[in-house]
C-alpha cells in the first residue's frame, strides 16, 4: 500500500534532491515505514532511486509480456490467413516466413509499447482524478517534498521533528 492512497500526514519541503534523499533515509532509519513516505519531485529521479533503495519497477515485465504477445499474434495472424484461403501469388509458396517476420516485428513493438504504457498507468496509479493533499503545485515547479503519512499525532510529532532535523525548508501537516 503506497502512501498516496491515505489522507493525512506531515509534509516537508526541500530545495534539492540530496536533501530529500537524506531525509528519506533518516526517516527510514528512525523506523518510519517506507510505504508511509512519499517523495514529490519536479524532475526525474534516477539518482533518488539509488539513494533510497527502492525495488526496480515491474513495468519491464509488462513490456516483456506485451512484446511476446505481439510476436505470437503476428505469427498466428499471418500464417493462419495464409492457410485460411490458400491463394497463390507470384509462383510463391502459400506460406512465406520472411513475411511473417516483418508482421511479427511490428506487432511486437506495438503491443510492447502499449503494454509498457499500460504498466505506467497501472503501477503509478494514473489517471487519477485529482492530486492528493500531500501534493503542492510547486512540486512541479521548483521545490521537492517529502510527505510522511501519520496515523496519530505522536507519529506526526516524530515525523515533524525528523524533518526539521534534516533541514526541511518548511514543515506543515496535511489533513
Amino acid at each position, binding site marked *: 500500500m503506497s502512501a498516496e492512497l491515505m489522507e493525512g500526514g506531515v509534509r516537508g519541503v526541500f530545495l534539492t534532491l540530496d536533501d530529500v534523499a537524506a531525509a528519506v533515509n533518516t526517516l527510514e532509519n528512525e523506523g518510519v515505514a517506507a510505504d508511509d513516505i512519499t517523495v514529490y519531485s519536479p*524532475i526525474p529521479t534516477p539518482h533518488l532511486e539509488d539513494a533510497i533503495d527502492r525495488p526496480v*519497477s515491474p513495468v519491464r515485465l509488462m513490456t516483456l509480456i506485451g512484446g511476446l504477445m505481439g510476436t505470437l499474434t503476428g505469427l498466428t495472424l499471418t500464417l493462419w490467413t495464409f492457410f485460411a*484461403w490458400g491463394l497463390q*501469388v507470384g509462383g510463391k509458396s502459400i506460406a512465406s516466413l520472411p513475411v511473417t517476420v516483418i508482421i511479427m516485428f511490428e506487432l511486437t513493438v506495438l503491443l510492447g509499447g502499449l503494454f509498457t504504457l499500460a504498466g505506467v498507468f497501472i503501477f503509478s496509479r494514473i489517471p487519477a482524478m485529482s492530486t492528493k493533499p500531500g501534493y503542492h*503545485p510547486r512540486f512541479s515547479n521548483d521545490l521537492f517534498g517529502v510527505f510522511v503519512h501519520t496515523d496519530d499525532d505522536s507519529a506526526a510529532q516524530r515525523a515533524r521533528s525528523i524533518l526539521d532535523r534534516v*533541514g526541511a525548508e518548511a514543515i506543515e501537516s496535511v489533513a
Partner: protein
Amino acid sequence: MSESTSTVNRRASGLAQATVFRRVNDDVLATLQRPGVGWAALMAVVLTVLGIAIAAWMYQIKTGLGVAGYVPPVMWGVYITDFVFWVGIAHSGTLISAILFLFRAQFRTAVYRVSETMTVFAVMTAGLFPLIHLGRVWYFYYLIPYPNERLLWPNFRSPLLWDFFAISTYFTISSLFLYLGLIPDIAAARDRAQPKSFRHRLYSVLSLGWQGTDSQWRHYNRAYLFMAGLATPLVLSVHSVVSWDFAMAIVPGWHSTIFAPYFVAGAIFSGVAMVITLVVPLRKAFHLEDYIEEYHLNNLAKLLLLTSLIVFYAYLVEFFIAWYSGSEFEKAIFWDRLTGRYAWACWIMYICNCIIPMSLWSKRIRTSWFWMFVVSIFVNIGMWFERFSIIIQSLAREFMPYQWDYYTASWVEWSITAGSFAWFFMWFLLFVKFLPSMAIAELKELLPPKLRRQQEELEVAS
C-alpha cells in the same frame, strides 16, 4: 562552524537551483500564453490551403483518379512522393529523442520535444497519402485484417501491407512516446494555470493527475527507457519497410538491396533538416535563446552533414551497381536519370542534397542561425525531389519501350501536396500554443549551460 557554513552553502545552491527551476517553468510555459495576431494569421493561411486541398480530394474521389496527372506507365506520382517525403520527415524525431536518449546525448533535451511532435504530425500527414492515392478509397478497409463476410484476408506478402502495419505501429508508438514525455510537463502547466479555467481543466485531464511522486517517477523512468528501446529499432524498420515498397518491385531503379539503409539515412537527413527549419523560427518567436544555443545547432548541423555524406555515398553506389550489374535495363534507367527528360529533378536533388550541405564543413555556417535555416530548406526541397526522381523517372522508362511516357502532376496533386504542409503546420501551430514545446522536467534535470552558469552566479552572490 564549518558544518554550519556547508549547510549554508548547500542551502544557497539549493535556493539558486530553485530560482533557476522557476525560471525554466516560467520561460517554457510562457509559450502557452494566449495566441497573438501573428499566430492567428498563420493559422488562417494554413486553414485556407487545407480547405482547398480537401475540396480537391473530394473532387478527385467523385470524378476518379484521372484528375491527377497520371500518365501510364507512371502509375505512382506526386502522392507517393509526398508519402515517402513525410515518412522521411517523421524519422529524425524519434531518432533524436529515442536514440540520442539511449546514447545519453545531452544536446537532445532542448529540441527533442519539437522533433517528437514533428514526428507524430508528419506521420499523420504521411498516413493520408496512401489513402489519397487509392483508386477506390472507399474500399480502403480491404487492407485491414478483420473477420469479414467475404472470408477473405489481406495479402501479407504485399509490401503495401507491411507499410500499413509499419506506419500505424510507428504512429501509435511515437504518439505514446511523445505523450509519456509530456505528462510531467502538462502537470506543471496544470499547476500554473488559473484554477477552474479552461486550460486548467484541459491540463488536469491531460496530465492524468500526475504528481511526480518517487514511485511514479520510478515507473516512468523505466517505461521511458523501454519505450526508447522499442522505438529505436522501429525507426530503423519503418523507413526500411517503406523502401521495400520499391526495392521489392522489379522496376529498374527500384529493385536494389541498398534501398533500406539508403532510405533510412535519407529520412534522418530530411528529418534533421526539418527540425532545424522548425526550431530556428520557434526559438526566435518564443525567445528561447537561452535554451537552444549555437552548440545545439552545431550538433544538428553535424548530424545533417553526416547523413548528407551517407546519402551522397548511396547515390554513387546506385550508379556503380547499375553499371556493375550489367543489366541493360538498370544501366538505361540511370543513364536516363542523368540525361533524360527527368534529369532536371535529378540534378535538383544532387545540388540540394550533396553540394549545398558541403558548406556545413565550415563552423561559421554550422553556427549561423540564418544559414542553417536556408540550408535546411534546400535539403527539404532536395529530399522531395529525390523521391520524385526515384519514383517517377524509374517508372517512366521501364522495360517496355512501347509504353515509355512523361508524367506531369495536375493542379489537384499540387493543391493536395500544398494541403499536406498546411495540415502538418496546423497541428504544429496548435501544439506550440497548447503544449509545452520543451521538456521542462528534463531541462531542469540537465540544465542548459546558460542556466547552469546563472545558477552558479546566484550561489556566488549569496
